[in-house]
């Protein structure tokens, strides 16, 4: 480090500090806010097409399918991934392992801006002539392979595919960064089996994503060739043949692990909240870690259960069905162990806890209702009906919305230095749960009635006509659900700027390392101190001396003051002092 560069560093401009920042916390917040904003857009799309279902004919058929498609794509790739991986991962991983930043800060920044570019392309794909792609978020060819012929939206389709590719690239950068960071930058004393469960889940998710997404990237490349160059990898003409089933395989080889990619961080969030709010060590920590690893491995072996009636070999369907049922074992183990963590605890019904409990309960429903879909014969009837819709909303909405908002309520004080209102949080949770069940649960009955998905107008069918009122009920619930989230959006923004200030860096009296840092943590996180880990991550309900003093937990590590600061920290601290002086000058002059 030369003197020249140190002179520059403490005059970080607005752009370097908030926009093109390499600080993991700023990048995490960027991901989080972008994700939440996209969640509003995805939710609004859901409202629009649900309105059409309650009042058929409001939208044209193409518009209806376009909103359905973009709702799915946005919620998976531009909401779930940025919030759970980009947002929480970036915010928490370095703090939880006691590092000062990610292993590759510049790569981290690039990851966010690649993601941002993908958002721009996504929006552009909606606005180009012909409108957006409307062939479903699964992109099945041949419908997507000749968009001009079948869907009438070639530019939109190409842009959507490019946006997807960029999103994958950005998340790959993030995943590589997470794994490299956790493997090499853990603080002294932090062995692998002392990592908080959340960090375990994040790196497992990163592994899963890296190993599963690449076949889909290849498939998207081939699909783009089909569209642009007229090849026939996935489409069939009278003279030349490709295989639509091949795309489905490559898609679901990614698609199934992808669900776990977003599920694992959500389970990590639940583990953190359950332990600190029930004041109890995580039951069977090591077993839970192994369950996660086994579930991750198994997730590569079950993909074809999405294709039981899609023309695959009926013999291999049997194998995939059995493996699918086996994968319920590690997940039921996780749920049982989380339950045991709660039972025997001293449960505080705080706002994040209510969200987390709601997520847990909904996930039980989501997990169980997956069984009729994984069982191959009942899947014949349920395939591509509203039963599937209900099932994946019980899993994915739980993961993406309930767990994420639980995490937001839980870690908001740490990262913004202010609180989200507690009483509002409880009402928010309860109302969200009610309206969420109001739209998701009736879908089970529609699925039982054999109502296929993605029908713009069910009045075309005799046997479906009587269910119109169910759609209206679901639409009303969706509107109310969305309204509650809009209120939350306002409260969220207000709390960032004008919420109640927190003074205690550890308001939940939690054990993991991030609560040792000041709220909000400064650049390079630990200042002139440094944590050293001495315990496992969940030392709650401790006995002995501390308990007599009314302290029921043992922080995972202790902060030590450094005698000699690492060069960059010293430089940064010096810089910070000067900067605040200059701010004072500015304010007074």
């Amino acid at each position: 480090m030369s003197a020249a560069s140190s002179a520059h560093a403490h005059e970080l401009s607005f752009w370097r500090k908030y926009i093109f920042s390499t600080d993991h916390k700023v990048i995490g917040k960027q991901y989080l806010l972008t994700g939440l904003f996209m969640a509003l857009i995805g939710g609004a799309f859901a409202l629009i097409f649900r309105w059409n279902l309650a009042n058929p004919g409001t939208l044209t058929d193409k518009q209806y399918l376009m909103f359905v498609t973009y709702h799915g794509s946005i919620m998976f790739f531009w909401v779930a991934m940025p919030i759970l991986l980009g947002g929480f991962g970036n915010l928490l991983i370095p703090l939880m392992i006691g590092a000062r930043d990610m292993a590759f800060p510049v790569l981290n920044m690039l990851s966010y801006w690649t993601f941002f570019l993908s958002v721009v392309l996504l929006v552009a794909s909606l606005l180009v002539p012909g409108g957006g792609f409307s062939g479903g978020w699964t992109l099945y060819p041949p419908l997507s392979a000749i968009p001009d012929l079948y869907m009438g939206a070639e530019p939109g389709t190409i842009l959507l595919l490019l946006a997807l590719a960029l999103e994958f690239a950005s998340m790959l950068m993030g995943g590589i960064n997470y794994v490299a960071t956790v493997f090499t930058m853990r603080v002294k004393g932090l062995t692998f089996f002392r990592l908080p469960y959340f960090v375990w889940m994040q790196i497992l998710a990163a592994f899963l994503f890296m190993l599963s997404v690449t076949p889909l990237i290849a498939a998207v490349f081939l699909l783009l060739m089909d569209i642009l160059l007229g090849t026939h990898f996935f489409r069939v003409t009278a003279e030349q043949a490709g295989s639509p089933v091949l795309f489905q395989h490559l898609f679901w080889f990614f698609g199934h692990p992808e669900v776990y990619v977003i599920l694992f961080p959500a389970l990590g969030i639940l583990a953190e909240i359950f332990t600190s709010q029930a004041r109890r060590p995580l039951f069977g920590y090591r077993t839970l870690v192994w369950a996660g690893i086994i579930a991750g491995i198994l997730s590569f072996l079950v993909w074809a259960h999405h294709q039981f009636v899609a023309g695959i070999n009926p013999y291999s369907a049997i194998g995939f069905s059995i493996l699918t049922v086996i994968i319920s074992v590690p997940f039921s183990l996780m749920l049982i162990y989380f339950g045991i963590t709660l039972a025997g605890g001293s449960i505080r019904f705080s706002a994040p806890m209510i969200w987390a409990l709601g997520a847990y309960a909904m996930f039980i429903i989501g997990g169980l209702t997956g069984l009729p879909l994984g069982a191959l014969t009942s899947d014949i009837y349920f395939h591509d009906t509203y039963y599937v819709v209900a099932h994946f909303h019980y899993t994915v909405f739980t993961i993406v919305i309930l767990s994420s908002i639980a995490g937001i309520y839980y870690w908001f004080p740490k990262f913004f230095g202010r609180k989200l209102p507690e009483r509002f949080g409880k009402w928010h949770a309860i109302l969200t749960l009610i309206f969420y069940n109001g739209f998701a649960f009736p879908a089970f009955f529609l699925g039982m009635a054999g109502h296929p998905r993605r029908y713009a107008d069910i009045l075309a069918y005799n046997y479906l006509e009587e269910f119109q009122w169910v759609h209206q009920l679901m639409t009303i619930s969706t509107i109310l659900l969305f309204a509650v989230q809009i209120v939350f959006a306002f409260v969220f923004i207000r709390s960032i700027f004008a919420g109640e200030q927190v003074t205690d860096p550890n308001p939940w009296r939690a054990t993991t390392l991030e609560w040792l840092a000041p709220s909000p943590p400064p650049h390079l996180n630990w200042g002139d101190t440094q944590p050293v880990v001495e315990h496992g991550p969940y030392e709650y309900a401790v006995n002995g001396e501390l308990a007599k003093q009314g302290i029921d937990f043992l922080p995972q590590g202790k902060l030590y003051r450094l005698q000699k600061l690492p060069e960059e920290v010293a430089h940064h601290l010096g810089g910070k002092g000067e900067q605040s002086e200059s701010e004072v000058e500015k304010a007074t002059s």
Partner: protein
Amino acid sequence: MAGGSAKGGGGHAEGVAGVRLYVWIYILLLAFTGLSVAVSQLLMDVFGHTPVTVAILAFSTIKATFILAYYMHLKYERIWIRMWLYLPLAIFVLVLIGVGPDIYLVLRDLWTHILTFAGVSGGVHH
């Protein structure tokens, strides 16, 4: 060996493999390339298509092994790095096993039925 890292934080390139070894491997690679071309051009008619293809792919695998082991230093790495070669190969095999039976059936049907069945016009005349 910068930094004095006793566990060999990456300074493996020297000492274990020298320039001479690299050049020898290069010559080997060239020899196998020549062999592949010769076999494909001369022996295709003698032994038939499939055996020659298998042989040439075997030569390629030998060449790839040399590059991976020496040029990419996997021979000197521990499992934590080598894993990133093995895992993709495992995934490849996995996908082949899962997809193979279906795709084989599908494509076999496709090419044989493409003219008689997929286009209705091909098979039915009125």
